[in-house]
Each structure stands twice: as structure tokens, then as C-alpha cells.
């Protein structure tokens, strides 16, 4: 029965893992660490590996290099990984829950809703504290998510996704109008943030993102046991003892919170939430919790790679992460869907 499984038991507790999946996830984590280390060394001023290690372990390095590493690169790398993990987690859990490979909250209007609210606030009061952004973003994201849910109430998953597309177009038009009617001075900061830039990363935004990820992530993982049953249909899931709507709503709410949170700290990063779960499906089969962990790490890898490439390829010009991500992500997504074209129900 437990072929390919590792089971650890201690009294009443037991943990079960597939060793292949465990191996794959460990590999991903190692890859992420290596990439993060490499990202620390590259940039407008190259810092070699020994110096980075010295800085991390002994905290003794020339003031300039320490400043570059500690105040610019490290927070930027952390933020990239956090944002990627947030978006990927939100996408993975929503895709699983709706049984639809195209259901990514950041594609279905949540991102635009959050952006709209935050830009509106930025234009009204540019001096707004950073910590307020996730709150406003969450309100906007939830409003957009609710609008999608209400309009497509009781409709097929296909209609749900298409309604999401429509609402996100509508919201982005509103955003353009809002921007066009704004003053030029406040426009600058709004535009910079909208393009999905990690340029302004600092430890405060890292802290905000981390808090949101830890909170929403814990809820999602706590409920993952219930969410996992969603692929057997509502009747079976209910009979097996998941509450009818409580876990479902909390999970979706947390997915919206994750997207809104990432939008509020780094702006619009597309495609992560769609691609990361699809890539995770190429890994050895694993439980939903394993899939979520793998998706998060893949999302972190994607955003970190895109941002690092964006700031090094055309140096000294820096491409916003949102743009390099879309340039990498869109063809990747198309490739993934092409490879899985007969496998999924995504594109019915």
C-alpha cells in the first residue's frame, strides 16, 4: 500500500510523504538557495562569492559592499522570492479548488482591483504609509473577486474564467482613465509601482510581505486537507466531513489576500500564479500540500530569475520585473499548456 511513501509515526501523530516528491521539493529548495546566492553577487557592482559569504557569516565587509548587499540586493531578493511564492500559492490553490487550470486570481480581476484601489489612494495621498497599502489593496481585490463571483454565480467554470477576464479588462480601463486624469507629479510614483518593479524594495516591504504570506499561507495549509477533497465533487467532499462552505471561502479569501498583498508591495507581476502550478505538475505526483509547497518555490524561482535577469541583461538600464516576467512567462505558459493540451480540462 505505502509503496513509494515515507510514513513517520509518533504516538497519535503520523506524517506521510512520497519520497520522490520530498526529493523533488528538496531539489527545488536547493536550486532556490543557489539562485539567491548568485543573485547577491551580480549587479551594477559585482561582488564575488567570498565577499558575500564573509558578509553573511562574519558581517565584515567594506562599507560600500555591505550597504549594497544589505540595503539593496538582499531585500530585493527576499521580496522577489516572497512575491513569487505568494502569487504562486494563490494561483495553485485557486486552480485546484475550481478545478480549472486558468483560474488565477491575478488574471481574474483581483490584481486589477487591488491596483485600482491602491493607485486611487496613491493619487489622493501620495504620502500614505506603506503598511496601509495591503489593506486598501485587499479591499479592492476582494471587491473585484466578489464582482466576478456574483456575476458568474452558478455558472460553469468556463463562464467564471471568462467573466474574470471581462472584469479585469473593465478594471484596467478604469485604471488607465484614472491615471490619465491624474497630475503628472503623483503619476510618476504610481506608474513606477504599477509596472511591477522591485526597484524600491526595502526591509519594510519585505516584512509586510512576509507577514501576509505567513498568515494566509498558514490558513491555506491548515485547510489544505479539506481543499484536497474538492476534486471529488461537492457531494463526496461533504459526506467525507468537510464543512460545506467555510473552508472553501476562507481559502479563496486567503488567495485574494495573497494577490492583493503582493500587488501592494511590488505592483503587477503577471503569469506567476498561472505558470508555477503548471510546472509543479511536471514534478513527481504529490499531495496537495506538497504541490502547494512546490508551486511556491517555483514561483519564487521565477520571479527571482526574472528580476535578476531584468536588472543585469540591459544594465545599466533596469527592466521592471513585471515586464521581464511577462516576456519569459507568457511563452513558458503557452508551452506548458501546449504540452498538457490533452491532459487537462483547462481549456474546454
Amino acid at each position: 500500500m505505502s509503496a513509494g511513501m515515507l510514513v513517520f509515526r509518533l504516538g497519535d501523530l503520523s506524517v506521510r510523504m512520497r519520497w520522490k516528491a520530498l526529493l523533488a521539493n528538496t531539489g527545488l529548495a536547493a536550486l532556490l538557495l543557489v539562485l539567491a546566492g548568485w543573485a547577491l553577487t551580480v549587479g551594477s557592482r559585482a561582488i564575488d562569492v567570498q565577499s558575500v559569504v564573509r558578509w553573511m557569516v562574519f558581517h565584515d565587509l567594506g562599507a560600500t559592499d555591505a550597504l549594497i548587499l544589505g540595503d539593496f540586493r538582499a531585500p530585493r531578493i527576499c521580496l522577489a522570492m516572497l512575491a513569487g511564492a505568494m502569487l504562486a500559492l494563490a494561483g495553485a490553490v485557486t486552480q485546484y479548488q475550481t478545478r480549472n487550470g486558468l483560474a488565477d486570481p491575478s488574471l481574474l480581476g483581483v490584481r486589477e482591483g487591488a491596483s485600482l484601489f491602491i493607485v486611487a489612494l496613491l493619487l489622493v495621498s501620495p504620502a500614505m504609509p506603506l503598511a496601509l497599502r495591503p489593506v486598501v489593496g485587499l479591499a479592492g481585490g476582494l471587491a473585484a473577486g466578489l464582482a466576478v463571483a456574483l456575476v458568474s454565480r452558478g455558472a460553469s467554470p468556463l463562464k467564471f474564467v471568462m467573466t474574470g477576464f471581462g472584469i479585469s479588462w473593465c478594471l484596467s480601463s478604469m485604471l488607465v482613465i484614472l491615471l490619465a486624469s491624474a497630475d503628472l507629479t503623483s503619476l510618476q510614483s504610481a506608474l513606477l509601482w504599477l509596472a511591477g518593479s522591485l526597484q524600491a524594495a526595502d526591509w519594510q516591504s519585505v516584512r509586510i510581505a512576509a507577514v501576509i504570506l505567513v498568515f494566509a499561507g498558514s490558513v491555506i495549509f491548515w485547510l489544505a486537507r479539506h481543499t484536497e477533497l474538492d476534486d471529488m465533487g461537492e457531494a463526496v467532499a461533504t459526506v467525507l466531513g468537510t464543512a460545506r462552505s467555510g473552508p472553501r471561502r476562507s481559502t479563496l479569501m486567503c488567495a485574494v489576500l495573497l494577490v492583493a498583498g503582493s500587488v501592494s508591495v511590488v505592483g503587477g507581476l503577471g503569469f506567476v500564479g498561472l505558470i508555477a502550478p503548471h510546472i509543479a505538475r511536471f514534478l513527481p505526483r504529490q499531495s496537495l500540500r506538497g504541490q502547494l509547497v512546490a508551486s511556491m518555490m517555483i514561483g519564487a524561482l521565477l520571479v527571482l530569475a526574472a528580476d535578476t535577469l531584468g536588472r543585469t541583461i540591459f544594465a545599466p538600464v533596469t527592466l521592471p520585473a513585471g515586464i521581464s516576467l511577462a516576456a519569459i512567462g507568457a511563452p513558458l505558459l503557452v508551452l506548458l499548456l501546449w504540452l498538457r493540451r490533452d491532459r487537462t480540462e483547462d481549456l474546454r
Partner: protein
Amino acid sequence: MTPVQGAGGGAHKASLTLALGFVAVLFGLHVLQGPRNVPLETFPALLFDRSPASFDQFVILHLRLPRILAVVMAGACLGAAGFLLQTAMRNRLGEPHILGLNAGASLAVVVLTAFPLIPLPVAAKPFAASLGAFLLFGAVLALSAGGRDRFSPVRVIFFGIALSAMANALVSAILILDEDTLEQLRFWLLGDSAGVQMSAIAAAAPTVVIGLVGAALVMPRLAALSLGDNLARGLGASVKRTRLIALLMAALLSGSAVSLIGPIGFVGLVAPALWPRLHNKPSVAALLLVTLSGAGLLLAADSLAAGILAPRELPTGALTGLVGAPVFIWLVLRTLR
């Protein structure tokens, strides 16, 4: 002509008159609209007593007329392109913006502006834009042709969105790296009609005419296609060639529209949706109706964009999106299973 088409003809005549009237009224209103109050006497003077010294005449002739002409042409193109896409793919949600034609055309224009490998004449811009539209849309079609459900609406639309996003990312990257191009194209990219020159209109005119005439010629074959591929084959229509021609014309039309006033969405979706039961009955009269409605819609949107927050101008593309996206949702809820 079959009896069905004959019966529809009368209704079409009334609708056509209505649409034409609307376009005329909007045209007139738009000419009068603007920061400068132009007295009505200027208009007869323009015809009978033209004087280069009159500033009023200059405003009408060189600022307002080109803009309105460009809007009418682009609207007509977008309406016709949307109708072609919808009938050729039998998908009511087809539209140049949604399916990626606009993004392809923009990318082509931006690439040509940023990397002028060979000095291209202005007249080549609409062709280049059409080529870009055709290439990107071709990629969308190639991708959605695989797998079990070939060309299902959600598939085509999804790949349209994905490839549009990629093209837009490339556009943004080019613009960030190349500030000159950004300066030239910033407003154009949001769909903006102010500042269109007569030379651009003249450059776009050939592609517009070719596209519209081609669309009219392919309409009867598309009517056969609307019965389903197998029946159409039975009636002797070459399904593949008809589709290809229709899609080529759609690319030409949306390329011209993009080269004129930038990527503008949803006009091609809304124009056919205005008239009930038009989508499955392609005919020349229907094409004309859709073309006129597209022109009227874009005129209205442009007029609003210029007027709502005057003297500040809103991008026309954003306004059409604001109105068009709900129409898209409405169509989704009505037509999809």
C-alpha cells in the same frame, strides 16, 4: 438571393439608415466640439471661400477633420474586423483586441519605430502593422489548433490574452530601453486620436479599402460557412481558403486601425452585438451595418474622451474598454454553456 436574405434586406435597410444617421450626427457634433468655439459660418466658408489666414478654418481643416476622419476609418475597420473574426471562427467573442491582433500590430509598429533597419516610408506603416497582427494571430490560431477541442472560444481567447501580454511586455521593454520611441508613441499606445495627420490617413487608405472590399467579397462564402464546416463543404465552399481570406482581411483592417489611432479594443465586439441575430448571418448588408456601427461607436467614444474632462483628454481606448468589457461579460453569460 434566398428568401431569408430577402426578408432580412428590408430590416437591414432601416437599420442602415439609422446607423448612417447616427454617424452623420456624431460627425457633426464632433466637428463642433473642442476648446475653441468655432462659429457656424466657418463651414460654408470652408467650401466656398477658403482663406489660409482664417484660424477657424485652420482648426477645422487641420486639427479636427483629420482626427474625425481617422476615428471614422478606424471604427469602421474595427467593426468590420470584429465581424469577420466572429463569422469566420463562429465565435461571438472574437475581436481584434481580445484575439491579439491589436497587440501584434502595436508590437510591429513599435519595433519598426525603434529599430529602423531600412528607412520605411510612412505608407508602409499600415502594412507593417497588419503583418504584425497577422503573425501574432496566426500564432494564437496555431496554438489553439492542438488537442481535443480545437478552436474552442475559451482556448482562442486565452491564447490571445497570453500572447497579447507577451507582445505588450516586449513593447514595454523596448519603450523603457529606448526613450525616443517612448516619446513618439506614448499616447498612441493608449489609443489616442488627437494629433493624427492627413498623411497617416492617406497612408492607411489603401489598406482600409482593400480590407473592406475583400471583406465584402468574402461575405457570401462566410454565409455558407455559418452552417458548419461540413455543410459548407457540401455546398462547395473551400472552408480553409475562405477562413484564411477572412482572417487576412481582419488582420489588414485591424492593422490599419492600429496604425491610425493605436490599439483600441472592444469596438469590434460591440458593433455586431448591437444588432440582434447578425452574428450568424453574414452578408454584405450586415457588413455595411457593422462597419457603420463601428464608426459611430468610435466617434461617440472619441467625442466623450475629448469632452468629459475637457480640457484634459482621456485615452479613447480606455473608454471603449470601459464600455466594451461589460458587453463581453454579457455575451459570455448569454452565449457560452
